[in-house]
């Protein structure tokens, strides 16, 4: 084992240099179709990029929009939602609900400046292992082309020292350390505050 792991594994063929941006994609799959498709891709040794991290839900209709926003806010570059084809949902019609949530989410994230390619919906039946693998590869390349998202975390634990606070420091703003209830040390009062 070398001391330093390689930056990123070169894709098959070894065309891309080691510094290629490797997107992190969270994939939500349904238990009955798309997860089985991914499983089939695995057993059939169909290769797809390791950039996608698949999470199994019982149904695409279980996809709470919170999951998608949380993924973006915690470092995912893209989210792939996948479920049974329309009309083939194990729970009758819940994938239509997923479709409507997906469409609402896309409108919302676009208003916030997130490219629509970062949220994609792919239908895949349990027999479509190759199709799902191809779609994952396509999404990966699309996201690789638009680059990292790097959405800054808004909560108190991470805000100090990460992107947002760094931006304030750069503009000469208040860059005190993370506040703590009991023993935080406030520096000398600023002149404008001590009127």
């Amino acid at each position, binding site marked *: 084992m070398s001391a330093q792991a390689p930056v990123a594994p070169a894709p098959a063929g070894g065309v891309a240099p080691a510094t290629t941006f490797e997107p992190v994609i969270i994939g939500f799959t349904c238990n009955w179709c798309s997860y089985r498709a991914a499983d089939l891709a695995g057993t059939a040794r169909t290769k797809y990029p390791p950039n996608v991290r698949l999470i199994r839900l019982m149904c695409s209709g279980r996809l*709470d*929009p*919170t999951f*998608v*926003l*949380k993924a*973006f*806010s915690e470092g995912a570059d893209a989210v792939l939602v996948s479920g049974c084809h*329309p009309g083939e949902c194990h729970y009758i*019609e819940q994938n*239509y*609900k997923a*479709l*409507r*949530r997906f*469409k*609402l*989410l896309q*409108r*919302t*994230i676009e*208003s*916030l*400046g*997130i490219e629509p390619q970062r949220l994609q919906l792919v239908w895949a039946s349990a027999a479509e292992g190759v199709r799902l693998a191809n779609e994952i590869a396509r999404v990966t390349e699309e996201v690789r082309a638009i680059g990292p998202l790097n*959405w*800054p975390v*808004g*909560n*108190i634990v991470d*805000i100090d020292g990460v*992107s*947002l606070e760094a*931006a*304030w420091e*750069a*503009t*000469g*703003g*208040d860059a*005190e350390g993370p*506040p*703590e*209830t009991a023993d*935080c040390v*406030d520096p000398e*009062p*600023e*002149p*404008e*505050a*001590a*009127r």
Partner: protein
Amino acid sequence: MSPIAGSNGSGTAAARPPAKPKLAIFGAASCGGCDIAIVNIHEHIVDVANAFDIVLWPTVMDGKYSDIEALADGEIAVTLVSGSMRTNETVHLARLLRRKSQIMVSFGSCASEGCIPGLANLSSRKQIIDTAFSTSSTDNPDNLRPVWECEVPEGVLHLPEFEPVLRTLDQVVDVDYTIPGCPPESNQIWAALEAVVKALNGTGPLPPKGSVLGAGNSTVCDECARKRDVKKIDRFVRIQQVAGFDPEICLLEQGLPCNGPATRNGCGALCPAVSAPCIGCYGAAEGVVDYGARLMSAYASVVQAIKPEEIDKVLDGIPDPVGQFYRFSLAGSLLHSSRSAWQDDGE
């Protein structure tokens, strides 16, 4: 630590009654409506004055920040902060008050989730300042812009600096309790203050840290008297497009985007009672991580369309998704601001 009663130049305190706990009320970036709501507790305001020694309340009394700096750490019993963190001055004061206070309360929607000022997180500082200083309604022939630092013969003047994004109080300091609402209902304010007064008197338990005070644990729908049974809609309408709404049936079922399903109860469902949709001023219901996500989920469930183009047609009825889903909660939401805001170019 033994708190000393406020000495506002009234001589030595030899035979004073026992010191009252200190109260500070501070409005950061807010409209002042929260202060009015506090005054609106009517005669109970006398009870507040009896129970507390008010050390800071810029809206109604004189008070100097230097007096707060002179207090010992933890000397203020309760601080209510009723605005969001927009400038480095408000951030500094929130941190100062946090250090001086035993209990820090995020009071109202601005402090808790950003509220209407939080919608500024859709724009960069440059866009905000350009809009404020160079639109047709502004008389600014020299196209001047504010500067945070200015040298004059007497020395250097400082103005509070506008931060790239607006933050909620709990993104800046540790918060003990939250009182939601825009503004909080006055009866709820008194109920919350009474609980704290009782706890300070030793006649009641202090609510667990992190509690939401002065509100319910359910949704506005739960308090709303309107009937819900169909839970199916085929279009969204805007309030001015329909002559009259059925006074008995759920507004969302009548196609009016109503935020009741995601909003915490506690207001008494006042808006839907008069055929105005809930706009979500009481913030996220208990257990909701992201207000807009919960609402998107709810709306997606009631829309009946199943074909992509039909769905798009229905969703076109919500022309401003962020304004609809995050009107009061953008700054406190998972994504908190638009990319143009957080990628601030420093003007």
